[in-house]
């Protein structure tokens, strides 16, 4: 199984290492042709404005939208913003394929970034060490979206819509590969129905 990691900017090497430690083959995606034949894609954390602009400059928006119609795709932090349908007033390029309303930088500036142990539906073995860095949250989710984790204030920080997955935090920075394993299992179930 070959998984792509969008490598325009951000923490793509951390995702690559996690996937490789689980036995997946990984390809870095910077141009549309790099998507050919992949079984799944991760859109990493980074600066969502930068990733969006670079995706537009190199004609990636439509190929990415097409890819996400049938192939498992997981966005972390900036990747969650990029997948969302609605981010309020901010103007930046979005794929708009996940029925989420996302609030960028929901917690404030870097000084408010935090770590917390999080219960996530579908992730067995106890709470997950979740790292939030200038993180977004989803304030609402459409009917087709399963909410997997919320904070105490009810904001949504992990969600699934069929073969699409979004986390507001950074599993690629945690010393815990359970969500990467979950995503590989999802990709395997889609590629061999």
């Amino acid at each position, binding site marked *: 199984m070959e998984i792509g990691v969008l490598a325009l900017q951000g923490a793509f090497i951390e995702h690559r290492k996690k996937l490789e430690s689980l036995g997946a083959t990984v390809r870095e995606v910077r141009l549309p042709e790099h998507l050919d034949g992949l079984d799944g894609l991760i859109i990493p954390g980074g600066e969502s404005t930068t990733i969006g602009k670079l995706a537009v400059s190199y004609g990636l928006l439509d190929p990415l939208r097409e890819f996400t119609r049938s192939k498992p795709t997981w966005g972390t932090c900036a990747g969650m913003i990029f997948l969302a349908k609605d981010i309020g007033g901010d103007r930046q390029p979005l794929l708009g394929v996940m029925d989420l309303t996302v609030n960028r930088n929901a917690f404030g500036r870097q000084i408010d970034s935090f770590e917390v142990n999080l219960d996530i539906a579908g992730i067995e073995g106890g709470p997950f060490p979740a790292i939030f*860095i200038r993180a977004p949250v989803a304030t609402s989710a459409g009917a087709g979206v399963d909410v997997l984790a919320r904070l105490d204030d009810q904001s949504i920080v992990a969600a699934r819509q069929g073969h699409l997955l979004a986390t507001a935090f950074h599993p690629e920075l945690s010393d815990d590969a359970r969500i990467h394993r979950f995503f590989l299992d999802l990709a395997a179930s889609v590629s061999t129905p």
Partner: protein
Amino acid sequence: MATNGHTNGHNTGETGTETVKRGLAQMLKGGVIMDVVTPEQAKVAEDAGAVAVMALERIPADIRAHGGVARMSDPDMIEGIMKAVTIPVMAKARIGHFVEAQILEAIGIDYVDESEVLTPADEEHHINKHKFKIPFVCGARNLGEALRRIAEGAAMIRTKGEAGTGDVVEAVRHARTLLGEIRRLTSLDEDEMFTFAKNIQAPYALVKETAELGRLPVVNFAAGGVATPADAALMMQLGVDGVFVGSGIFKSGDPAKRAKAIVEAVTHFNNPDVLAKVSRNLGEAMVGISVSSMTDQQKIAQRGW
């Protein structure tokens, strides 16, 4: 421990941890951080795809020309830039000037650069960066200097280069020195590592960690003299995680276009076809100063200990 009220029934969220401080730098990787002196320039940088901006009153080329003592910028000016953009904002404090850093933390800056570009406030001690909840980036010319800064709590390193020159030669020298030392370190056996740590005047535990990782334990950008997309891609191919561009953008003929070209060059650093495309018709590059014509006294990279 500091808390922010975000919990989900287990632990209270913890802010200001080493993981969180280093983590922001990890999100900046593969990106360009640009020096800006006004909110308008900050918007130009953000629109070009910068991952962060460095807010300062004078860019290094002007600090050089102006002379005198260079200090932390006016908080009001920094806040004006923080309001203008959604990307992270960094600001510089003088080496050893922990009160300037406290002020920057109080206004909620995302990253402090304890920078040799400003006039040092302490010629023996750097800031104890563990005391802060906001992360710090520090300059380094070699592995020993980088690991001493990390021991003091730096969450990100930038090789120094020679700021405000537009000459990439020192940026290359410092990146090659640091990355070359790491390559040599990984070939040593455990017994030899003790002497290596002593020779580069760095804590043994960090030397060992660097050897095991095969890289610095924190993100490492290049800085100091990057003026063209080719310069930026050169630094990336040498093995850094991203680049700072100071005077190179807003001292050039067409800052918006050059800024965007440098951002694209960092993403596609290994693709000469893209590099050829983005290098075209950028207008005049900054005039620059050749570092080989400078005396050691004129070099600001010498500052820091």
